[in-house]
């Protein structure tokens, strides 16, 4: 055993274990709390797959059918912005089913020259406060740029978006051209 003044004391302290397995349920507990506080980037694979299907479809099928869905010289400017908000409901939808519906929807818009552009947003954006503090946000999943005669037509297009049927939210804004 160690004696007073014995330098072996510090050696023994240094040799004490440095790790111990935490309780098995602790990880699950923390993950649940993180999800509840929206501190965890949501699983995006279903939406990512959907967007991939849309834009692959738009680029190849839409481009073939409608000339081009991306703005280029001489093409009219988009009139409306459709923001796609993820919700737990839409993130838990079956990805294959969602992708099929998005594909059909995008094809119809591309054929009627109502879809100008769109993109999925990388998860994990920030909102900057006036004091410079960055607050994490992350539920805007992507956007579409639409061609519409007026707000009513844009709203009618937005209402056909499959995102709504799966519990997602949309925000429609007219662009100031």
């Amino acid at each position, binding site marked *: 055993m160690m004696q007073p003044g014995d330098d072996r004391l510090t050696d023994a302290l240094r040799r004490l274990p*440095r790790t111990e397995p935490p*309780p098995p349920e602790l990880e699950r*507990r923390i993950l649940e709390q993180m999800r509840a506080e929206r501190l965890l980037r949501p699983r995006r694979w279903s939406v990512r797959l959907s967007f991939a299907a849309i834009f692959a479809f738009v680029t190849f099928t839409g481009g073939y059918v409608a000339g081009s869905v991306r703005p280029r010289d001489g093409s009219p400017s988009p009139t409306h912005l459709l923001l796609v908000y993820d919700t737990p409901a839409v993130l838990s939808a079956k990805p294959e089913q969602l992708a099929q519906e998005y594909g059909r929807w995008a094809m119809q818009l591309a054929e009627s020259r109502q879809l100008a552009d769109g993109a999925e947003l990388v998860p*994990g954006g920030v909102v900057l406060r006036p004091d410079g503090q960055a607050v994490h946000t992350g539920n805007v999943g992507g956007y579409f740029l639409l061609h519409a005669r007026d707000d009513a037509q844009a709203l009618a297009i937005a209402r056909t978006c499959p995102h709504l049927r799966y519990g997602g939210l949309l925000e429609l804004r007219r662009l100031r051209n």
Partner: protein
Amino acid sequence: MFAMFDDKSFRAVYAEHTPALYLLALRLTRNQTDAADAVQETWLRVARRPDAFTAAASPRAWLCGILINCCREQRRAIALDAEAEDPVHTATPATRLDLEAAVRSLPEGFRQVLVLHDVEGYKHDEIARLLDIESSTSRSQLARARDRLRRTLEGYDDATRG
């Protein structure tokens, strides 16, 4: 671009750091429930500032700093310190268990400095930053903690010989 954990990346950093955090928390709180709570709160604070975690020069030191704050904020150590004034001398012969028990019997201030310096390997100026104390305080606390630890271990020896 902006750091944010997803399920997979969080599980990876959790697996890498939590066993060390948990044992440190156990030594600081002397209580499994409090240690688990402190570790949970630590990870939640990290998740609220993931950019700071990923930018930290030493993620482990960053985590330990947060963990120590969480343990201190629990305040339960204050009540337990009253017990620590009269450490229980067991006759358990296992040296490591004696040493662990003796460390856990130290009052909070001694225990924090001793664990961070002699077990975790932090330097006095690092401990000063972690605990928000002067480096000289860290040195004097360590000397007193070691002295008290030796006296406690003598008590174990007497008990086992007795």
